[in-house]
């Protein structure tokens, strides 16, 4: 059973980690773009 649990933990954890990383990237880029016009025109 431990082999099966390890496989499920790695697969589900891997997908969740990638989804979280994408969400972080999106937030950071949105923040950067919100401040971009100020930097360009400021």
């Amino acid at each position, binding site marked *: *059973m431990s*082999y*099966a649990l*390890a*496989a*499920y933990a*790695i*697969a*589900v954890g*891997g*997908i969740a980690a*990638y*989804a979280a990383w*994408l*969400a972080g*990237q*999106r937030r950071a*880029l*949105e923040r*950067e*773009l919100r401040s*971009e016009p100020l*930097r*360009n025109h400021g």
Partner: protein
Amino acid sequence: MTQSTSLPRLTAAALGVSALLWAFFVWRAPIDAMQGPIQKILYIHVPCVVGAYLGFFLTAGASGVYLWRRGERADRFAAAAAEVGVLFCTLVLLTGPIWAKGTWGRWWTWDLRLTLTLLLYLIYVSYLLLRSFTEGSERAARFSAVYAVVGVLLIPLNYWAIDLAGGRTVHPENLGRGSLGAGMGAPFALGMLTAVAAFAHLLVRRLEVGALRAERERLDAEALRREA
């Protein structure tokens, strides 16, 4: 705007529902008489293969469109699909050896199916590296697109590897009609559905990130032009 914000919600909802059903059916699935509980890895290993194949087919398709129309969006779509495909292929290469260790007694063997899967993985990892090292160059985008189209030819070879090897492989044959025992069809089908839903959700999210990166690059280029 409504469409761009509602699509991730839709894919997230589809993923949530199918994942819950899948988890329930995997939990209730019968224990295989030969392999024991480790056989349940089937319900996650094969769906991950579907995610990888889907990613690489879409990368090749979008690359073909890019070569034909030279559209920036097709190029961005190809990169996004490749990244999600590589994630699923990584999971295939992690869950497979765990299953192998528990049933064959070793993590890895240079079996034709395993070797071709590793090769497919390396091809698309190289594709992503190539893109990251040569970001923004149209020539590099063209070369990457050709590379992605050629790389996908490995998928049919990988799929029929067992037949090509004349059955002289350690890896089990592809599943066919009636291969699964009673009660194993539902968790398997739901696993496939969940993998497709997860793939769609991650691809939509990755496309959003790609679009934001493109917007940042456009603004940076604009700022540079103004400064010049």
